[in-house]
């Protein structure tokens, strides 16, 4: 607490003495900002009463029961899964091919491939969503389901690639050399040496792709046509037209799913990898 000015300015002195305390405050305040809304959702999911009000009169599991017996919400979950599961599988396959090609081969257009695999992150979602609905539904005449799966593949490829690529970069190439010296060809080496070694990264990339696809809204919203809503689209409609406390429950289910999948992904790779964009 001593802030007697020396040769440096008083502000500099103040910052110097209290730097670590200021950092602790910043960390605490910002993390509270990030987590309080999530805590509110969880809390409100137990609130009684048909309208949203705070604080709730009493706590109840009623809206969980409503949610579980709500066919529309359950159908939305099934619809979401029938899109996310195949989209994730395709996305992981393509992302692994991108990572392998970019890392192991030199070919014309290699930088373009990397750029193409990064751009879907960068172009605003609404722009790509619009472009996709024009081309898939308008020009190609694809069905809503196929369009949505393709859209989810494009959406998740950049993230899966960014997780898988570093595991290829960091894995000891000597093992592959050894395998080839022992007479294995490239395909065998990939299956028996490379793949098992990068498998945690592939699973992590897949989990993140799935999380992203399960949560995906903008592309789905534009491309899906009038087909069955996915869960995010269902929630969007609920929020916009008739909010019930059930939305809080769905949110909590979503949160638990996302948090557990991401934690699983983190346990398979380094936390910084999820960070790469």
């Amino acid at each position, binding site marked *: 607490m001593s802030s007697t000015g020396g040769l440096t300015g008083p502000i*500099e002195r103040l910052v110097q003495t209290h730097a*670590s305390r200021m*950092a*602790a405050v910043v*960390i605490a305040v*910002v993390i509270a*900002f*990030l987590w*309080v*809304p999530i805590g*509110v959702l969880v809390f409100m999911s137990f609130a009684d009463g048909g309208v*949203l009000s*705070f604080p709730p009169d009493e706590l109840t599991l009623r809206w969980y029961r409503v949610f579980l017996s709500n066919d529309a919400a359950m159908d939305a979950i099934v619809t979401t899964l029938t899109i996310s599961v195949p989209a994730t599988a395709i996305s992981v396959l393509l992302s692994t091919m991108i990572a392998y090609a970019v890392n192991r*081969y030199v070919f014309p257009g290699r930088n373009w*491939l*990397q750029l*193409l*695999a*990064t*751009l879907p992150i960068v172009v*605003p*979602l*609404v*722009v*790509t969503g*619009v*472009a*996709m609905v*024009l081309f*898939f539904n*308008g020009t190609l005449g694809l069905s809503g389901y196929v369009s949505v799966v393709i*859209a989810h593949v*494009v959406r998740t490829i950049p993230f899966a690639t960014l997780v898988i690529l570093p595991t290829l*970069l960091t894995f000891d190439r000597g093992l592959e050399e050894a395998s080839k010296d*022992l*007479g*294995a*060809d*490239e*395909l065998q080496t990939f299956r028996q*040496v490379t*793949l*098992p*070694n990068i*498998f945690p990264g592939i699973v992590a990339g897949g989990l993140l792709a799935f*999380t992203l696809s399960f949560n995906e809204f903008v592309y789905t919203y*534009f491309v899906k046509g009038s087909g069955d809503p996915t869960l995010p689209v269902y*929630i*969007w409609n609920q*929020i916009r037209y008739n909010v019930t406390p059930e939305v*809080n429950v*769905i*949110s909590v289910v*979503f949160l638990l799913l*996302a*948090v557990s999948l*991401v934690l699983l992904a*983190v346990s398979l790779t380094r*936390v910084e990898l999820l960070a790469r*964009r």
Partner: protein
Amino acid sequence: MAEQSGASVGPEDDDDATRSGAADTGGGLGAVSAFFRERPRLRTLAVAGPPYGVLILFFAIPLLAMLVVSFQTGEIGGAWTLSNYTDFLGSDTYLTVVWKTLLVSLQVTAIVATIGYALAYSIVRFSRRTTLLLLLVILPFWTSYIIRMYAWINILQSDGVLDSTLNMLGLPAVSLLYSEPAVLIGFTYVWLPLAVLPFYASLTNLDGDLIEASKDLGAGPIRTFTSVTLPMTINGVITGVVLVFIPTFGSFITPRLLGGTNNIMIGMVIENQFKSAFNWPFGAAIGMVISVVVVALLVLGTRLGGGLLATGGEEA
């Protein structure tokens, strides 16, 4: 799942490796392998081709198709026209929306950059539990965007969590929902984790000796920050800024759910053209205008040194 097959690299396939590999999958693979070994370009094509094809066909070509449609009259396949662009760029209403979107995006970017940098700096330089803290920061990012907005509706609406808390403290209610502050809060909330990551990466890579040197030479903490830390991490800052600005500029969810009718942003206009007005070519033209702005900013960001489109594994 495949973990067990990886531990031992197969002492069983020594000499007749190719044969045994082919045999256990019913033949063919060894032959395929040999075929590709003699044709490396074909092999590269087999690996790089499919993802390349998918991204070109389903990402690049749709964007080009949007460009084409934006020059057509009221419907797809209509006559060629410039009217979508002239209507848009000649309308004060739309230009005001673009201007307002720009202002909101700049404010959001400034707020997120300031808070995000302070947070990343605090974690990197003053905390030992960096992994846990980083996880706490990025986990909310992986939850559904719409649900995160819905959480804020719970908080900001009149008689919501915020107002009730203020009441309990004897303060007047603020009823922030459907106001510009609500939009700024919502955007800050969704993008903060995204911006912290490049800030964090660049601060982690900063050589601590440089800071010591600066202090040894007599600079105070603020001087050290402005003349060493910030310039040395500017690439990460630019990356984070671009990552926040671009999605904000194109967003329609946050302004629709939190902003109400007084806070229209350009993404909402596009959504309207596709979902209510059904004037797809006009929506496509606005999409092109947004894309031009975004590409210009990306090029600027890359020129200034942002690592957003940096290839390979390195982050800024």
